[in-house]
């Protein structure tokens, strides 16, 4: 057993990040170069650490043998209990992969903050964030998990408010940390309820005692876990922090947050509903299906109405989480209906989409980061014509857009196709309600696909094509090679994982099977057999043939036409402009692009339009000096849910404040009444 898979290996992994983090702070203080060396040090160590993590996860999967060990702690209930089995190895792999790419990207991206903010601080919190992300997949004890979970939220909070001179970042950070804390309170509640039901915080005890919990307690545990982890995943009513926080963070961090951090919630969903308490009734599966459907549909609609590039991508994370939850809900429903094979298959689809979304969302965010760094603004209306100035970034962003809109040879399509197959199985199930919900799920997935394609035509078209719409867009310049390298690798990955879908499906089915088949004592799980017998999965979705045929026909066609029309001349003239000079304002903008779809879905989006007209002189009101139109979409969550909540809290608090009336006689009366009441109570009890 080489050191990689032993407790020493894991501790070595953590120490890499600790050295990276504190080294960065120390270097930042030592040499006053604005933290450049510290930042480089931090990102280099983060890269090393994530590659190390990748190796560990790969080895664990190949050897098919999990690791479990625990380190005692001075406090009674606390126990630093580690466990890496198939599922955590997979998530550890995804996290390490995206962290590695983000670190490569970060190596040169961080120089943009030089002179504005200290880079050592960014390096420190970045390492803390990646380290806690990895620990979340390994924790095997309730309190240890909560500790790591909160460290993750804290580190990501500091990264969100890294540029603390911008007030909107502070607001975003505030909302983010508040919502995560609200979510953690619910997670704590569900863990305490589980502690009360099983008597211990260790997940192994929970696994053993799963059957013995009475249904009422079990529903509470599931409900609290749903709300708690739902807040972190960004399910629709609890998602309001996501479009605020992800764009505020530095781009390689938002790639990590959007690609991987929200996946830790999915990881815990799978752990709770399949690993600890695999006794969930069918209602839970259907709830997840409905939530997934709503999240995906509304997520893509809100993305359509956005004209801030990074917020658009953040809303797409909500949409893709919805798709993952569709797969997850389907597997839960099949589990409760007793079709183990289909449940395994649906869960593999969910995991596949988790992997795919992590890759292409990271690619898109890194691309957006380069665009924002090049132009200095996040507003898409000021982009345009960047395809010539940022050739590589635009190519990678295009590949990312193709992947996210689920077009065949790319990985997005593979996982969406699998989710479709899982949902199709659901239609022929027994009861009417289940059928209806599955049809709703398929409908939401179909429309999500179509609308996502529309959204990314807008995103790519407005950002990269045609003429620059603003001054900054004309001065854009291509990002340095590490940033391009990171994006390049991710772009190739989207193609490779898409085309090699047969192999990836067998890998995922192996991982999913490991949840149920790994015997508790030795933690060995039959992963290798699934790899060997991957031929059985090969014919499910052979995207490789699709890719080869399309490429072949494309090449034959191009060559043929090139040869045929070699004698024809190609001249470059002005775009047809009906005689008037085409200015940058005459191109379509992102708002006008999505206006038609917003008007169609106005029932859901409630678009708002505000016109302010300024006249030359107020009385006469004939000659308009300037007119401003502000369009936006309604935010039902804040009006209907969050503002009334805080207003109620303030109202109750102002009532309670009257206790401190300032009158000393009243204070003595409080003491006297408490005394009398307690005496009477003592005498009676």
């Amino acid at each position, binding site marked *: 057993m080489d050191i990689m898979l032993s407790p020493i290996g894991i501790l070595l992994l953590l120490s890499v990040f600790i050295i990276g983090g504190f080294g960065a702070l120390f270097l930042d203080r030592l040499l006053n170069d604005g933290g450049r060396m510290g930042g480089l040090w931090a990102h280099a160590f983060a890269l090393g650490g994530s590659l190390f993590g990748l190796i560990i996860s790969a080895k664990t999967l190949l050897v098919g043998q999990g690791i479990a060990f625990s380190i005692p702690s001075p406090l009674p209930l606390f126990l630093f209990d580690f466990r890496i089995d198939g599922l955590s190895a997979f998530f550890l792999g995804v996290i390490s992969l995206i962290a590695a790419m983000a670190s490569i990207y970060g190596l040169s991206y961080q120089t943009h903050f030089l002179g504005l903010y200290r880079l050592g601080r960014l390096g420190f919190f970045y390492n803390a964030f990646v380290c806690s992300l990895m620990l979340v997949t390994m924790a095997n004890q309730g309190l240890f998990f909560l500790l790591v979970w909160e460290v993750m939220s804290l580190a990501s909070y500091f990264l969100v408010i890294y540029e603390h001179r911008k007030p909107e970042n502070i607001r975003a950070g505030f909302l983010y940390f508040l919502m995560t804390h609200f979510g953690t309170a619910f997670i704590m509640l569900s863990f305490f309820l589980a502690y009360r039901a099983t008597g211990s915080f260790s997940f192994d005890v929970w696994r053993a005692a799963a059957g013995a919990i009475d249904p009422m307690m079990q529903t509470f545990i599931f409900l609290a876990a749903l709300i708690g982890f739902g807040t972190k995943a960004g399910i629709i009513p609890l998602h309001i922090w996501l479009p605020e926080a992800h764009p505020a963070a530095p781009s390689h961090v938002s790639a990590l947050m959007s690609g991987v951090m929200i996946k830790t919630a999915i990881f815990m969903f799978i752990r709770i509903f399949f690993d600890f308490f695999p006794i969930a009734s069918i209602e839970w599966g259907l709830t997840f299906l409905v939530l997934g459907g709503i999240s995906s549909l509304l997520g893509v609609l809100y993305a359509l109405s956005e004209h801030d590039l990074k917020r658009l991508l953040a809303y797409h994370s909500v949409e893709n989480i919805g798709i993952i939850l569709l797969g997850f809900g389907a597997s839960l429903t099949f589990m409760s209906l007793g079709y183990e094979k289909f449940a395994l298959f649906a869960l593999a689809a969910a995991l596949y989409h988790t992997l795919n979304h992590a890759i292409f969302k990271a690619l898109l965010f890194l691309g957006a980061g380069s665009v924002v760094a090049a132009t200095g603004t996040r507003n898409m209306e000021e982009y345009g*014509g960047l395809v010539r100035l940022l050739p590589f970034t635009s190519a990678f962003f295009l590949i990312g857009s*193709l992947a996210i*809109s689920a*077009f*065949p040879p790319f990985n997005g399509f593979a996982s969406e*196709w699998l989710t*479709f*197959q899982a949902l*199709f199985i659901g*239609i022929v199930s027994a009861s009417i309600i289940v*059928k209806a919900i599955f*049809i709703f799920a*398929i*409908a939401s997935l*179909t*429309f999500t*696909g*179509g609308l996502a*394609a*529309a959204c*990314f*035509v*807008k995103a790519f*078209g*407005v950002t*990269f*094509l*045609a*003429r620059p719409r603003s001054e900054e867009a004309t001065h854009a310049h291509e990002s340095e090679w590490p940033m391009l390298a990171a994006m390049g690798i991710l772009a190739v990955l989207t193609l490779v994982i898409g085309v090699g879908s047969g192999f990836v499906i067998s890998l995922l089915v192996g991982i999913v099977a490991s949840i149920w088949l790994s015997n508790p004592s030795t933690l060995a799980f039959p992963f290798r057999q699934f790899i060997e017998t991957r031929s059985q999965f090969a014919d499910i*979705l*052979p995207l490789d*043939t*699709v890719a*080869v*045929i*399309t490429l072949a*026909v*494309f090449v034959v*066609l191009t060559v043929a*036409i090139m040869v*045929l*029309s070699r004698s*024809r001349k*190609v*001249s*470059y*003239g*002005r*775009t*047809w*402009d009906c005689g008037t000079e*085409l200015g940058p304002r*005459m*191109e*379509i903008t992102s708002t*006008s692009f*999505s*206006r*038609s779809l917003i008007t*169609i879905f106005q029932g859901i989006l409630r678009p708002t339009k505000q016109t302010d007209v300024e006249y030359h002189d107020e009385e006469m009101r004939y000659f308009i000096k300037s007119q401003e139109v502000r369009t936006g979409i309604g935010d039902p969550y804040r009006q209907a849910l969050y503002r009334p909540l805080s207003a109620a809290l303030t109202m109750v608090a102002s009532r309670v404040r009257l206790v401190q009336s300032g009158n000393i006689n009243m204070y003595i009366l409080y003491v006297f009444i408490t005394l009398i009441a307690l005496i009477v109570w003592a005498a009676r009890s």
Partner: protein
Amino acid sequence: MTLFFSLIQIVAIPAISPLFVGIIRKLKARMQSRVGADIFQPYRDLSKLFKKDEIISKDASWITKIAPYIIFTVTVVVGAAVPIVTTIIPSFTPGFSLLPLSDFIVMVYLLALGTFFLALAGMDSGSGFGGFGSSREMMVAALAEGGLFFSLLVASVASGSGHVPSMVVSLQTLPFTSFMPLIVAFLAFFIALLAENNRFPVDNPSTHLELTMIHEAMILEYSGKRLALMEWATANKLVIFIALGANIFFPWGVAASLEGHAILLAFVLFSLKTGALLFSIAFIESTMAKFRVFRVPDLLFTSFVLAVTALCIIITF
């Protein structure tokens, strides 16, 4: 033998698609009591365009240059997997057949890939028309996908398989009584066909009037061989949809084997069915007025609802 037959299958749709366009124009002309050009005119147009020089806008990027090729390839690739006369799947070497391509989800999304690049090409030249055309096109495509997807899903559930050729085979054996949901699904599919191929109630293929054109706006900037490819790809797409509509929802007569007489019978039946479809398209184009843009979503939602009702009927009984 199968190698030769597979090559024919790939070449067949691009070959006959200009003919279909010619027939529709001829039928429309006749209904509007005009003589109209003869049915082979589109072939001449294409060859003329291939011989002409090209002007590309200097604002355009490599996407404008490459998009026509991608779109045309997509239509050819999907066309290869659509059963026209026989349900045998073309395969070059034993392990390498076009089976994966014939999965209806792969088809729908490949066609969507074509539309994606078409929209991007539209926006690339930076003119107002192109941008607006792409916006409208993506709106229609997004909404039509629901109806299209669900109607094919009804057929897939009825036949129990995802691949179109095997769908056709098993649907042929279906008893007449349970064909009612398939008719409803066909209606939904037909509306989706009109929307996807920019046919009449949704978009006017023959106009260049800014207000009414969606598809034409996107290829406004093209000229020469790229314009030819675009026109040809649109024609291919039309044939694919018609072939799907004809063979899935009216499956009888599609030859299961390669003997001569079965092929001949299948050929006759296929031309009858497509003739009827072409006639109905032409009929709609000459009698109905084009819908206002914001009434198109209602049409597409009706197609979606029709398809969902068909699905519900199929599942419950």
